[in-house]
C-alpha cells in the first residue's frame, strides 16, 4: 500500500541486505552454476577419457608457462579427440559461406513456463524469469563453452572466457587469477554509448553483487577475497579448496557484469545495458521482451569456426510472454513462432499441430529440477524412514512417465535430479546398487508393493495411511496431472492422498519452506509434492540451496523450523506451539543427519573429478537409503524448432547417440547469450511454410 516503489527505493538507498544477515549462518556455499570439472557423457564411468577436470587443471597449470590461448585450444582439441574416441558424432557449424544473417526470431520467453520477469535486475531476484534475460544482454567472467567442434552437450562444466580472456590461472588450490579483456565495451546505447569496460566497473559490479544478491551468501562462504590487480587482473582467494569454484565464476546466477551508470540512475531493473551479444530494446509486461543484435560483440567469435561475420547472426529476438499452450501450439504449427520450448505433456499435440518440425528440429534436455514428495520430519509418520521408503517403493515410476510424458524419454530422478555428469540413474541397479552400507538403497526406487506394505506394517500402519498432500496448481494443469499420477501410483500400497492445492504465493510462504500444518492427534499426516530448485548445474547448488541446514529456503521439509517461519505470518496456525508437542520427534529428518552434512561438506573439496563424481554417487546412494526426498521421475525438457531455424544444435552441442542433446541446462539461465547468438533464421524456407 506504500505509495512508492520499494525496489527503486531500495536501489536509491542502497539498502544493504548484507547488514541484515547478522548472526545467520554463513556456512552454506555457492548456489547455482556449473562445475569446475566434468567429463564426457554421464554414462561414461570407465575412465577411458581424461576428465575435463584434469584437463582444465592441467591446462591451467600450463598456463603459467605457456600462452593461454594455446593452452585453451589444446584443451578443446583434446576434448574433441575424446569425444571422437567415444564415438560421439559432432555437428559441424555452417561454413562461413553458408551463413544466413538477419531475421528476427519470435519464440516464447520460456515456452509454456513463460511469464513476466519480476525485475530485470538479476541481483534482486533469483527466479528464472529474472535471470534468463540477463544472459542476452550481460556478460560474465566466464561462459559455458560454445561452438560446434568438440563441444560436449551434456558436459555442464566446460568453460571459456567471456569478459575474461580465458580460464583463470590457478596459482594454487585456493588462488585463481583472471585477466579481463582489454577490448570489452558496453553497448552503444544511452547512457553508456559504447564506452570501454573498466576494472572499476567490475569492482562496482562485485560490490553490488555482494551487497544485494541473495546468492552472495554462498559466494562469501567460498571467496575470501576479490582483488583487482594491475594489468586487468582479478585475483580470487578462496577460503578453502572448492571444486565447483568456476561454477561460481561462470554461473548464470552470480556476477553478471553491469555498468554503474544504470545502477545509479535506477534503470537497472527496467532498462539494462550490458556488454553481451544482444542489446536490450524493450520489455512490455504481458507482451514481450525485445533485443537487437550487438555485432560489436568483441568476444563471442573466438571459438566459432572462421567467422567473417560477427555474431549474433540474427538481427533480433522477440521473447513473447504468453505461456498458454492453447496459443503456443497453433502458433508453432502456423509459423507465428519460430520455435518453442514444450512441456512433455503437450509434446504430441505440438507435433501434430506442427508436422513440419522434423526429428532434427527437436532438442531434448535432461531434467535437472529435483522434486518429489517432501515431509514434516518432526513427528510421525514421516520421520520414520520406513514410511518414506514404503512410499518410494509404492511408486510406479515408469508407469507415471508412461502416463504423463509424451516424449517417452523421461528418466528416474535420484536425490540430485538428473544432473550430469553426477547423476546416477536409480533404474540401473547395476551401477546404483541395490544396497548401500548394508541398507536398502537403489532397490527402493523399484516398485515393490508387498515390501512397501511390510514396511508400513512395521512402522505401525498395517492398513495404510490417509494423508493430505500439499502442493500448488499454479505450475499448470500438466504438472497437476503429473502429481495425480504420482499419488495414484502410491495408492495401491495403501497411501491415500487427498490433495490440498494452495495458490502459489501461499504455497511458497508455507509448505515450500517446510512449514506444514499438523493434525494434532499425535500424528502428522501432511506431506507435499513439487519441484524444489531450477537451474542447477552442480550438485552443490542443490545441497546448498535446498538441503543444507543454512539454506534460507530450507524447503526440503525441516525440523524445528516453524518458529522461524512464523515470519511469513501464514498457515503456521499455532504450529509453533505444536512443535513442542509431546509426540514431536527430533532426529527423523535431514537436519540432524550429521553423516549427510559431512558428505555434503566433503564433496566440495574434492578437486579430482572422478573422485568427486564417485563420492557424489555415494551421496545419492546414501540419500536413497534415507529418502528424505522421495524423488518422482522426470520428463525431459524439449525444444521444437521450425525447419527454418538453422544451426540450433551448434551450441546445444553434439548429437550423441542414446543421450540427450542439451541447450538450456548447458549454460543454465545464460542460454540466451550462450546459444542463440549462432542461430540462423532462413526466411526463404519460412516463406515456403507460412
Amino acid at each position, binding site marked *: 500500500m506504500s505509495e512508492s516503489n520499494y525496489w527503486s527505493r531500495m536501489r536509491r538507498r542502497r539498502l544493504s541486505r548484507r547488514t541484515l544477515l547478522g548472526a545467520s549462518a554463513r556456512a552454506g556455499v555457492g548456489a547455482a552454476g556449473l562445475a569446475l570439472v566434468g567429463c564426457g557423457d554421464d554414462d561414461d564411468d570407465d575412465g577411458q577419457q581424461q576428465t575435463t577436470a584434469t584437463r582444465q587443471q592441467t591446462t591451467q597449470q600450463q598456463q603459467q608457462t605457456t600462452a593461454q590461448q594455446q593452452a585453451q585450444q589444446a584443451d578443446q582439441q583434446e576434448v574433441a579427440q575424446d569425444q571422437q574416441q567415444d564415438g560421439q558424432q559432432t555437428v559441424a557449424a555452417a561454413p562461413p559461406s553458408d551463413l544466413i544473417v538477419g531475421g528476427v526470431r519470435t519464440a*516464447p520467453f520460456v515456452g509454456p513456463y513463460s511469464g513476466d520477469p519480476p525485475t530485470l535486475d538479476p541481483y534482486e531476484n533469483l527466479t528464472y524469469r529474472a535471470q534468463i534475460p540477463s544472459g542476452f544482454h550481460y556478460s560474465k567472467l566466464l561462459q559455458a563453452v560454445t561452438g560446434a567442434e568438440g563441444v560436449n552437450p551434456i558436459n555442464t562444466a566446460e568453460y571459456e572466457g567471456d569478459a575474461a580472456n580465458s580460464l583463470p590461472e590457478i596459482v594454487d588450490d585456493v588462488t585463481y587469477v583472471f585477466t579481463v579483456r582489454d577490448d570489452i565495451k558496453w553497448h552503444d546505447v544511452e547512457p553508456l554509448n559504447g564506452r570501454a569496460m573498466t576494472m572499476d566497473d567490475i569492482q562496482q559490479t562485485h560490490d553490488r553483487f555482494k551487497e544485494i*544478491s541473495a546468492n552472495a551468501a554462498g559466494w562469501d562462504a567460498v571467496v575470501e577475497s576479490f582483488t583487482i590487480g594491475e594489468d586487468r587482473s582479478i585475483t580470487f582467494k578462496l577460503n578453502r579448496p572448492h571444486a565447483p569454484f568456476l561454477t561460481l565464476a561462470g554461473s548464470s546466477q552470480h556476477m553478471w557484469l553491469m555498468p554503474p551508470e544504470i545502477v545509479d540512475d535506477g534503470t537497472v531493473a527496467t532498462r539494462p545495458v550490458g556488454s553481451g551479444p544482444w542489446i536490450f530494446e524493450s520489455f512490455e509486461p504481458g*507482451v514481450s521482451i525485445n533485443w537487437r543484435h550487438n555485432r560489436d560483440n568483441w568476444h563471442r567469435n573466438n571459438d566459432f569456426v572462421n567467422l567473417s561475420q560477427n555474431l549474433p547472426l540474427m538481427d533480433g529476438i522477440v521473447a513473447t510472454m*504468453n505461456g498458454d499452450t492453447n496459443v503456443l501450439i497453433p502458433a508453432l504449427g502456423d509459423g507465428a513462432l519460430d520455435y518453442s520450448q514444450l512441456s512433455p505433456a503437450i509434446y504430441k499435440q505440438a507435433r501434430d499441430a506442427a508436422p513440419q518440425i522434423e526429428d532434427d528440429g527437436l532438442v531434448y534436455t535432461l531434467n535437472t529440477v529435483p522434486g518429489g514428495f517432501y515431509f514434516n520430519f518432526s513427528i510421525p509418520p514421516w520421520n520414520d524412514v520406513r514410511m518414506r521408503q514404503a512410499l518410494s517403493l509404492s511408486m510406479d515410476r515408469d508407469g507415471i512417465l508412461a502416463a504423463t510424458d509424451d516424449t517417452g524419454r523421461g528418466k528416474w530422478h535420484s536425490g540430485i535430479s538428473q544432473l550430469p555428469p553426477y547423476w546416477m540413474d536409480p533404474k540401473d541397479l547395476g551401477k546404483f546398487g541395490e544396497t548401500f552400507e548394508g541398507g536398502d538403497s537403489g532397490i527402493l526406487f523399484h516398485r515393490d508393493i508387498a515390501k512397501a506394505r511390510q514396511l508400513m506394517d512395521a512402522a505401525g500402519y498395517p492398513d495404510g495411511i490417509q494423508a493430505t498432500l500439499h502442493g500448488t496448481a499454479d505450475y499448470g494443469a500438466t504438472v497437476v496431472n503429473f502429481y495425480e499420477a504420482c499419488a495414484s501410483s502410491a495408492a495401491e500400497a495403501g497411501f491415500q492422498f487427498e490433495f490440498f492445492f494452495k495458490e502459489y504465493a501461499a504455497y511458497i510462504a508455507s509448505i515450500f519452506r517446510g512449514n506444514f500444518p499438523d493434525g494434532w492427534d499425535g500424528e502428522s499426516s501432511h506431506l507435499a509434492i513439487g519441484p524444489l530448485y531450477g537451474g542447477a548445474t552442480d550438485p552443490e547448488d542443490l545441497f546448498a540451496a535446498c538441503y543444507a541446514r543454512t539454506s534460507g529456503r530450507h524447503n526440503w521439509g525441516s525440523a524445528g523450523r516453524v518458529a522461524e517461519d512464523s515470519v511469513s505470518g501464514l498457515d503456521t496456525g499455532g504450529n509453533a506451539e505444536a512443535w513442542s508437542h509431546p509426540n514431536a520427534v527430533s532426529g527423523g529428518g535431514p537436519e540432524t543427519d550429521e553423516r549427510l552434512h559431512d558428505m555434503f561438506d566433503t564433496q566440495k573439496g574434492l578437486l579430482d573429478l572422478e573422485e568427486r563424481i564417485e563420492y557424489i554417487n555415494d551421496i545419492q546412494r546414501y540419500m536413497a537409503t534415507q529418502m528424505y526426498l522421495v524423488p518422482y521421475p522426470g520428463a525431459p525438457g524439449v525444444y521444437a524448432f521450425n525447419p527454418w531455424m538453422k544451426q540450433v544444435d551448434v551450441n546445444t552441442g553434439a548429437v550423441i547417440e542414446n543421450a540427450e542433446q542439451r541447450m538450456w541446462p548447458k549454460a543454465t539461465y545464460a542460454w540466451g547469450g550462450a546459444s542463440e547468438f549462432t542461430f540462423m533464421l532462413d526466411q526463404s524456407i519460412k516463406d515456403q511454410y*507460412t
Partner: protein
Amino acid sequence: MRQYILRRILLIIPTMIGVTMLVSLLTQLLPGDFIDVMLADHVGQGEDVAAIRAKWEEDLGWNDPWIVQYGNWLWDAVRGDLGTSLIGSFNTVVEELQTRIPVTLELGVLSLIVGIVIALPVGIISAVRQDSWADYIFRGGAILALSVPSFWLAVLTIRIVFPQLGLPALPLVYQDPTENLAENLRQMYVPAIFLGIALAGPVMRLTRGEMLEVLRQDYVRTARAKGLREQAVIVRHAMRNALIPVLTLIGLSASILIGGSVIMEFIFSLPGMGLRMLDALGTRDIPVVMGIMVVIALVVIVANLLVDIAYSLVDPRIRYN
C-alpha cells in the same frame, strides 16, 4: 435533471471509498503477500529470512495498521498518485493504466459492437416471427451463448477451427492500432467476436421479450390500425420502447466485458487491464490491483449513470427530479 446528475456524480465519492476500502480489506485477507513471492526466489542460503522480511515490511509501510495504510493510499489517490508497481515494470500505476486502458477499452468497444449487431436484429426478428423456425434457432443460439463460456469457445476455435480451415494463427505480439491497424484487428477480432457473442445472448433474449410485450400494447395495435407499414410500426413505435431495459443491460455489461476480458486478454496476449490484474494478483502487486479496481469501479458507476441519462433521452416520459 442537472441536479440529478450532480447528485449522482457526488454519490460516486462515497461509492468509490466503499469499493476501494473493501478491495483493500480483501487484499489483506489474501494468503501470502508480495514479500513471500519475492522471498521465494530471492533468498539464498544462509540468510536471515525473518530479518529481511522485517526490513522490507518496514520499508513498505506494512507495519502500520490497515486503516492507516488505506488512509495513506486514499490521500495519495485523491492527489492523482495511485502508487507504483512493486514488481516487473516498476511503472507508476497511472502509467500502467495509461497503457492498459486503451487495450481493454478497444476490446470492450469491439465486443459491444459485435454483441449489439448480433443481439438487436436477432432479438427483434425472433419476436416479430415468434415461434417460427428462425425464432427457435435464435433462441437456441442465445441459450448457447449464455451457457457456454466465451473463452472456451475461443480456445476451441483457435485450436480446432483455425487449423481445419487453414486460417493463420493469431499474432502473439500486440500491435498498437495507431501503428498497424490491420494487425491490431487481426489480434482483436476473435476475442471480440466471442466476448460479443457472450454479451449477445442475454441482450437478444431481453430484446425479444421486451419486443413481444411491446408488440401487444394498444398503441402498437393503434399504429397498425392507422395503416402504418409494419416496418414503421416496429422501428418507430415498438423498438424504441422495447429498448429501454435493453439499454440498462448493455450498460451493466460494461463490467461483464471487463471481467470477461481478463481471460481473453490472457489467452490472446492482449496487454490490457485484465491481463495486468491477473499478473498483479498472482504477485500480490497490490498497488496495481487497487488502481485497476478503481478504474473498473469507475467504469461501472459511470456506465450506470450514462444509462440512466440515456433513459430520459430515449423515453421523454422519464424525468429525474
